[in-house]
């Protein structure tokens, strides 16, 4: 998988034990859900070598949530999008959200967890100061398209910039999708991550869909450079 995770825990901070628990959690998620590992639970489940009842409860939780998301996203999010079972579009955000919750359970009040560009923030960057999460500009690498400020906020981005390192074919991307990138912002990362994935796949239908979701904000950047945001995103704190 190769995702880089970072934990930014600010004052008052927590004991090393809490950090270790989060590290162990992320390893466990990778071992269980990685579609790149043939012997992971999800891979074996996908091949029919395991029944869902033989898997950890988290696997069932993920698959049930995937079913709900498929309905919520009019089918644009699916754990079977590529043919084989692959709930990765939900798993990463869910794992990070859970990691953030574990840090809070360990006593942390202010922290920010980033995994491969999906971000879950809790509390404040400094007393009275919101977290500031930059959004990478998919059309201008190295630049930012904007900054999201918030306290208990989740930010996920889906699009050509995110996948550029793996699928370096910007012309094809532009031909098949009118969107260069979608950033979704709300309180909890698991759904935010899945919604960003779905919204990017929706292409031109994305604005109407995300506007129908109360509490969800979005920045959409089209391949031709046009931008769109949800009506009250600029007031989002």
């Amino acid at each position, binding site marked *: 998988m190769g995702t880089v995770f970072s934990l930014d825990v600010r004052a008052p901070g927590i004991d090393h034990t809490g950090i270790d628990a989060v590290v162990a959690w992320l390893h466990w998620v990778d071992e269980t859900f990685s579609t790149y590992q043939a012997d992971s639970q999800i891979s074996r489940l996908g091949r029919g070598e395991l029944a869902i009842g033989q898997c950890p409860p988290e696997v069932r939780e993920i698959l049930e949530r995937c079913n709900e998301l498929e309905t919520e996203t009019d089918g644009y999010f699916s754990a079977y999008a590529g043919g084989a079972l692959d709930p990765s579009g939900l798993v990463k955000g869910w794992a990070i959200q859970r990691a953030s919750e574990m840090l809070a359970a360990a006593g942390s009040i202010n922290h920010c967890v980033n995994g491969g560009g999906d971000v879950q923030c809790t509390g404040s960057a400094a007393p009275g100061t919101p977290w500031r999460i930059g959004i990478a500009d998919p059309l201008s690498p190295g630049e930012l398209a904007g900054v999201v400020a918030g306290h208990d906020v989740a930010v996920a981005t889906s699009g050509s910039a995110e996948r550029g390192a793996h699928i370096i074919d910007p012309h094809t991307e532009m031909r098949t999708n009118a969107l260069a990138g979608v*950033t979704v912002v709300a309180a909890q990362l698991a759904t935010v991550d899945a919604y960003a994935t779905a919204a990017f796949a929706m292409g031109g239908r994305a604005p109407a869909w995300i506007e129908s979701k109360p509490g969800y904000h979005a920045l959409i950047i089209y391949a031709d450079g046009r931008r769109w945001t949800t009506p009250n995103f600029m007031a989002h704190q």
Partner: protein
Amino acid sequence: MKRVLLSVTATILGLVALLGYKTHGQVTTASSGLPSASLPGGSSTTAPADPGSTSSVAPPDPTASTTTASSPTAASGSVVSGSAASTFTGAAESTPYGVVQVRITVVGKTITNVAFAQLTAFDDRSQRINSGAAPILLQETLSAQSANIDSVSGASYTSQGYQQSLQSALDQAGI
């Protein structure tokens, strides 16, 4: 390769966490806007790929006392007296959007600091807001030269270069 990346990831996790709580709230790494460990704020990224030389980078947190990155003359692999720390600079890795080069500081077999020797896609000078037709998400940041952000969403394309350079540094350190 996967297992190497996983151990790298775990190392980064533990490392960032270590830096985060050791400094008791001081913003060391993320204040420079990178989603991973320790970018010295405002540092020059003109350091050549030659591991024998370093730019005058220093972590913004003065309490990160075990690093050698604060010494402009510290060469890769040298031992700084008094701290028994060694630095190793990974190979400069090209990504489609810039060069990533990672430097680690090691005490024994423990990584105590990770810094970007080069990260041209994200140095402060290029990190300006695209103010073309962009809607204003936060009015006070659009006009800023430096966004002063804590983390970045959607920037995972630098991860591969980061991991390769970090692995190179780890190999040199024998970890």
